[in-house]
């Protein structure tokens, strides 16, 4: 699927939805971490309720970040090479180190922040959780004030280091794309900054949503002040992000470089995901709404609800931004002349399923981590008190959970509803239902991939499997057996053999550059040469064609245009026939082919004037055959006279039909090779068109550079082709019978018998082919008895 021109190798899409996920997930990590650092380093007290949650979120997404890359690799088992032998000029080589550094940083900071909780939980809980917490404590149970102070100092340092690290982690992802000069949609120095800002934006938005939803599910009090400051932060970063993106587009549109046309077209093609989702839904509307709720008095609960919706919109908008960069950028052809179409794949390693699976995983890890290390532990006594209060109703919370958990929640709701209202057991009911819902959804997806009929397997390597393409076996071999090759006449020499005619036992080879005719016998031995010295008046200047009538050899000479009639037995020039010039501007005739009709008339094709001349044996002009108007002129489909359906539909670009060699078929029609058509044209006795064949529109039968034509006594038609380096054989009606002279007619890299087949002659069951400049190759034709009456060949 494509529009315009794309390089052939661009047909396959390289980076698809998994590579969209990768910057999206790392962006969420960077954003969430920045929020926690804002509290730990810059002391934004309002963010205290989410500071610990932010760390958990960052960790959950960070653990999954390499997964889409890993799943996308052609050789996932070699991924470790990126750590072991990084090639440091590659932006991608840094990924392993930056990711690992960041992982250590986040793990250590999380551990330090949650250390008092871990110690407390290790003491409080029972087997087996006690063992888990004890292992997490790493043997450190010192929660004295001094130890806490050390912890806090370390946390502050780590959080401070974490901010540039987050910038590095995500700015670097932007650089991966921004540094590709081959792609005009990616190549901009602003890319890392835009990636970083959109990362922070998405991280804040996600954290906001996660916080509000988690609190709702856990039936805890939402700190509206915290949500409000997060909204303000979101609005601020969103504004800078939008400004930078606008700036980039503006400079592209203003500079109007070579690539602008294609980029403008791309924006039009991505109007929904780019202008609609990314810009309007993901940035402009949130900016306006957030600006409104921070500038004007809005009721707290309402503003929190609005913030939740806006948060979702922003996260979706940032996802669309990643999509537009990664997928959008690849839809531009690097030829700047067209667009590649992205095709959706469900199964396989790079399908939608794999992407949804990977996108689900951070939320699963998040749920587990939150369960293991509740980030809101400090407020727990208050919440527990609230839960235990008899006035509190659990029904609204349950219905919320049901909605959140989707299809999986229904059954759980009923069964859980019957459990005795033990407040302790009910505490994580929302989380449990969410987990159940996620699990069910994933199981359903898994079923869809593995069990559904016809769905592609998950473990199938490669996003899209190449279609099985057979090597086109267009041409067949014609079973002619090579008898002999005469590269030099034994006892003589030639310079540039060009044409051949066979009369009796003699093979007469036209030596074009030697300006002579060499007669050899059937064993290739030199018999005699005919030139101006040995035959008076035989002044050969660029002779191109020969024919014989059984007694005399007829030689078509170009300068001057005349036909010499040579009696080889007597070694005399019998006569010469002057060829009349053409009608247009009196252009001289160039005899490009000669043959005899069954009535004994000589047919001379005149390539110069696009006509066939029919001469009586005494040289008088009987008929001048022109093709119907236009057909030997510039060939277009409109001027093509229908012989067959294919021929009617034929179109040849900017080439002129020109008759080359001619031969007479058994039914008396003249077959003329159209050199530039290319193809073979059948001319009726009255000069009208009787059809045509061997056009290259049919690759299995067409000719490319036809040089000569000959007919055997069974009516089979032989056309030598210089480009094909072989002889095409056709039945009397033009159907293809195969190729002579190629060991593999479908392979141009396999050897051919001839380099430049330029002329043909048939006598009985033998086919004589001139390999121009080299010699004569003789084949035995199948299906013809060896002893035959001699038929005058061409």
């Amino acid at each position: 699927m494509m529009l315009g021109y794309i390089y052939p190798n661009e047909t396959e899409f390289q980076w698809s939805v998994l590579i969209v996920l990768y910057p999206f997930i790392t962006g969420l990590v960077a954003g969430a971490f920045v929020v926690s650092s804002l509290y730990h380093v810059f002391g934004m007290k309002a963010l205290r309720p989410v500071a610990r949650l932010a760390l958990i979120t960052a960790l959950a997404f960070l653990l999954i970040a390499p997964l889409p890359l890993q799943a996308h690799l052609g050789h996932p088992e070699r991924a470790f090479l990126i750590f072991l032998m990084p090639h440091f000029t590659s932006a991608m080589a840094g990924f392993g180190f930056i990711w690992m550094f960041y992982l250590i940083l986040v793990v250590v900071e999380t551990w330090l922040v949650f250390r008092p909780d871990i110690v407390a939980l290790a003491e409080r809980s029972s087997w087996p959780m006690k063992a888990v917490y004890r292992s997490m404590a790493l043997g450190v149970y010192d929660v004295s004030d001094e130890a806490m102070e050390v912890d806090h100092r370390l946390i502050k340092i780590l959080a401070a280091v974490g901010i540039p690290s987050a910038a590095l982690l995500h700015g670097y992802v932007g650089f991966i794309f921004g540094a590709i000069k081959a792609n005009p949609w990616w190549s901009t120095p602003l890319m890392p900054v835009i990636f970083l800002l959109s990362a922070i934006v998405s991280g804040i938005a996600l954290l906001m949503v996660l916080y509000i939803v988690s609190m709702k599910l856990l039936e805890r009090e939402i700190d509206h002040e915290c949500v409000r400051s997060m909204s303000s932060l979101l609005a601020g970063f969103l504004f800078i992000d939008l400004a930078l993106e606008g700036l980039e587009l503006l400079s592209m549109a203003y500079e109007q470089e070579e690539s602008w046309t294609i980029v403008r077209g791309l924006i039009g093609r991505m109007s929904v995901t780019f202008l609609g989702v990314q810009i309007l839904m993901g940035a402009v509307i949130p900016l306006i709404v957030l600006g409104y709720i921070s500038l004007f008095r809005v009721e707290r609960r309402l503003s929190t609800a609005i913030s939740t919706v806006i948060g979702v919109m922003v996260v979706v908008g940032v996802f669309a931004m990643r999509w537009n960069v990664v997928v959008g950028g690849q839809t531009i052809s690097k030829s700047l002349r067209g667009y590649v179409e992205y095709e959706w794949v469900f199964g396989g390693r790079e399908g939608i399923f794999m992407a949804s699976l990977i996108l689900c995983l951070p939320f699963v890890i998040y749920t587990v981590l939150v369960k293991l290390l509740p980030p809101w532990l400090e407020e727990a006594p208050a919440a527990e008190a609230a839960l235990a209060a008899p006035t509190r109703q659990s029904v609204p919370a349950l219905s919320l959970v049901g909605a959140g958990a989707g299809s999986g929640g229904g059954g759980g709701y009923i069964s859980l509803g019957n459990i005795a209202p033990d407040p302790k057991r009910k505490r994580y009911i929302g989380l449990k239902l969410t987990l159940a819902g996620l699990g069910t959804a994933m199981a359903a997806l898994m079923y869809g991939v593995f069990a559904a009929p016809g769905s592609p397997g998950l473990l199938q390597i490669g996003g899209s499997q190449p279609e099985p393409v057979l090597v086109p076996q267009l041409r067949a071999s014609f079973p002619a057996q090579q008898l002999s090759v005469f590269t030099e006449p034994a006892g003589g020499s030639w310079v540039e053999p060009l044409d051949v005619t066979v009369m009796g036992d003699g093979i007469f080879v036209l030596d074009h550059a030697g300006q002579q005719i060499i007669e050899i016998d059937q064993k290739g031995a030199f018999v005699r040469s005919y030139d101006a010295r040995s035959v008076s008046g035989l002044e050969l200047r660029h002779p191109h064609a020969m024919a014989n009538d059984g007694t005399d050899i007829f030689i078509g000479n170009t300068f001057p245009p005349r036909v010499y009639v040579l009696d080889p037995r007597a070694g005399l020039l019998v006569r010469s026939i002057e060829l009349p010039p053409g009608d247009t501007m009196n252009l001289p005739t160039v005899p490009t082919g000669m043959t005899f009709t069954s009535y004994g008339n000589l047919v001379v094709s005149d390539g110069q004037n696009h006509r066939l001349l029919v001469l009586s044996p005494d040289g008088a002009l009987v008929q001048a055959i022109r093709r119907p108007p236009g057909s030997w002129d510039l060939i277009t489909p409109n001027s093509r006279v229908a012989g067959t359906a294919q021929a009617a539909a034929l179109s040849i670009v900017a080439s002129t039909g020109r008759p080359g060699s001619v031969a007479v078929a058994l039914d008396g029609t003249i077959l003329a090779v159209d050199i530039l058509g290319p193809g073979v044209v059948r001319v009726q006795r009255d000069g009208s068109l009787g059809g045509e064949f061997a056009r290259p529109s049919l690759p299995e039968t067409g000719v490319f550079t036809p040089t000569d034509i000959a007919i055997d006594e069974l009516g089979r038609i032989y056309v030598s082709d210089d480009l094909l380096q072989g002889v095409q054989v056709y039945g009397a009606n033009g159907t293809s019978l195969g190729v002579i002279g190629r060991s593999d007619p479908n392979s141009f890299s396999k050897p051919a018998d001839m380099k430049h087949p330029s002329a043909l002659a048939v006598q009985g069951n033998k086919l004589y082919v001139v390999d121009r400049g080299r010699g004569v190759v003789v084949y035995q034709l199948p299906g013809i008895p060896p002893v035959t009456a001699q038929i005058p060949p061409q």
Partner: protein
Amino acid sequence: MSEPVRRRAFLKLAGRVVIGSIVIYGSPAAVMSKLGQSAEPTPVDADAGPPGYNPKAHQWVFIVDTARCIGCGRCVRACKEENHVPMDPRYNRTWVERYVQTADGEMHVDSPDAGIHGFASFEANREYAGQDITKAFFVPKLCNQCEKPPCVQVCPVAATYKTDDGIVLVNRDKCIGCRYCIQACPYGARYLDPDEHVADKCTWCYHRISRGLQPACVAVCPVGARKFGDLRDPESEVSKIVAQLRLYVLKEDLGTRPRVRYTQLDEGVR
């Protein structure tokens, strides 16, 4: 007085972090590195020259005479056969583009099935039916073997590398299949081998040229539109062409310094 306690706790913690990190992340790496992988590019046997071939003694160059090309597509076919490139038209080491300018000044570009069957078919010419064509020419494309190859720059594991004679090759045993090089190539010369899942590209038939042969596409070209040779040999045809004719390269503005030189290029050929 609380100072020693703090310091001890801090050191203890830091020590644990450092040792833990080394144990967790260092040991697999240490084991892997013992497996004999090195960061130095290592040529692949299949592509490497024969023993005795000295890459430093050559400076290969490829010249495409667009005026000669007749668009027969034999080069594309020969390349696929020589290098076992899939016959699927989505994967090509070389291809032929056709540029057709119609009377309205519009330049049309196409490369049906990468040009492997030529351009004479009815389908390839349908859009020009009844149109006046003012000029048309063919442009064979292949890897430019850039002097500053972006593909080599971006490979995260140095699986693709430049030899001393200027050819960019891919170590198929090392390529991780990330496809960054495919994205980085401005000429669309690379593809992911669908069978082995590694990046693949034209090598100018390194296995042939290092044995004194011509690349397959050059050998089968019936009109001499593709020329290949050594700039170190002043008597070679390519040396004379480079010395005497005006030659162009594709996408010069990207600074990749391609080694494939074109004659008679027209505006809009990229």
